[in-house]
């Protein structure tokens, strides 16, 4: 594919693969922001469809812990591309892309909330679905389905206090 070759000549260390007609590119975290920026500005991938994360803790033959997935689409040509980027403990961090797409704000907050991925330069790095008192990141594979009893420790606000 022409696009993949162009990207591979512009950036080092990219591996591309295809499955059922979907192109995926694995990018190193150092050049992630620049690749996304190039895709947006030079190749017309103007729509950020989603940012999500996968925890590969129990995945067979996985080398890295977390895999971030950036799904992009081109609203003119209806092309799609997925950019993946692997990060590891103890401080999984990637650059925030809110500067490129305003719509990245909430998905990045969700990835922080659910997986504990830090987004460098995010304007509002709070939890989104869970309350601030919550300490765990529940979509990690080492977090049990039943929870760890956090709900029992939530503060109870009485009517008088509220």
């Amino acid at each position, binding site marked *: 594919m022409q696009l993949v070759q162009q990207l591979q000549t512009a950036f080092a260390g990219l591996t591309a693969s295809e499955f*059922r007609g979907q192109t995926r590119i694995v990018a190193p975290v150092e050049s992630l922001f620049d690749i996304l920026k190039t895709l947006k500005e030079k190749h017309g991938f103007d729509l950020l*469809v989603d940012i999500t994360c*996968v925890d590969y803790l129990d995945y067979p033959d996985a080398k890295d812990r977390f895999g971030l997935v950036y*799904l992009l689409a081109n609203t003119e040509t*209806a092309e799609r591309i997925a950019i993946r980027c692997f990060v590891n403990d103890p401080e999984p961090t990637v650059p925030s892309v809110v500067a490129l797409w305003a*719509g990245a*704000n909430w998905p990045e907050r969700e990835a922080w909330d659910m997986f504990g991925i830090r987004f460098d330069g995010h304007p509002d790095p709070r939890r989104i679905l869970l309350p601030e008192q919550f300490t765990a990141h529940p979509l990690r594979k080492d977090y049990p389905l039943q929870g760890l009893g956090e709900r029992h420790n939530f503060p109870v606000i009485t009517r008088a206090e509220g």
Partner: protein
Amino acid sequence: MDLAHDERQPYQWTLNFGPQHPATHTTLRLVLKLDGERVVDAMPDIGYLHSGFEKLGEHLDYNQYVTVADRMNYVSPMANNVAWHMAVEKLLGIETPPRCQSLRVIVAELSRISDHLLCLGAMGLDTGAFTHFIYAFNPRERIYDIFEALCGARFTNSYTRVGGLMYDASPKAIEMIRDFLKRLPKALRDMERLLNRNRIFVERTKGVGVLSKAEAIDRGCSGPVARASGVARDLRKDEPYLNYRDFDFDVCCAEGGDCYARYLVRLAEIRESMKIVRQAIENLPPGPVNVMGTVPFASRVSLPDKKAVETTIEGLITHFELVMSNRGFETPREEVYFATEAPNGELGFYIVGDGSQRAYRARCRGPSFFHFALFPHLIRGHTIGDVVAVLGSLNVIAAELDR
């Protein structure tokens, strides 16, 4: 963060809107900074309906999870069923038989009609047109009857299965759909005549919550919200899935980007969906509704029908192999993203398969999540009465938002 106790506030007061409020429809919470009646800023606070759907997706198998997909956008559960199983079939590389594809198109379009009817009705209700809501709700009831005839459930349908459908459509259900298509245009005309030129409604929605085309793309909007801002993107046309390629329909767009444009786009889409359902129902291909039917027991994916289970040994074994918790079918160790054009916009699932019959990761990309994120942007500078008009036009479904 803590707006209620911020001493330096330049505005006059803070209003807590929700989580339980009739105009939020579901559990949404907004903290509004007000200057008199003018909204200075709004802070959405979501998560009240967070139920760990994505975590559940890692513990339920591909057929079981469809019941959870139902509960994401409970206004149009059939569309979610189709989206989930289309994504699973993409991972497995299955092509469903033509009759299944047509039936999936029919139920997806009926649920689009039902979703839009509720959204339009509620939009009228929130802006003071109660009668309009009743007019919109009446045809919805008929759609529920059709779904009941199709699969036995009215609300949470779980109609699809991996590689097909739960049941074939009975002649009675097909007759009900035909009857519904005859009656719906009258209801739509009534709705249009009540509201389209109603001065109160038009004044409350025109020029309110304007979203430009560039902003719609920048903020990840899709579906009617994006199309009302002039983004001509419809996955049914752009990346045709099922057999949408065979049907003649138009993509409805508007230029205004305001609440009124979103209202008109949804209204026009109901008519287009009717066109699709009419074409699909009159040209319904014969044959089986799941891949099991095309090549008996060849693909160990879809459940055999009950008759085969009770009368043949192959059927019994296949059924047993599929429903045992340590058996099931094999999936590739791969990742796919598949999106469908749900009533509210792009509903996609990112599925990671690890070889077992359960998804390793089942991410749901719901349109509501992106649409509610742009709410503060739309409401700034408007009055408090516009909050419900903008909320209604975005059609945010909390269960899909919080998952």
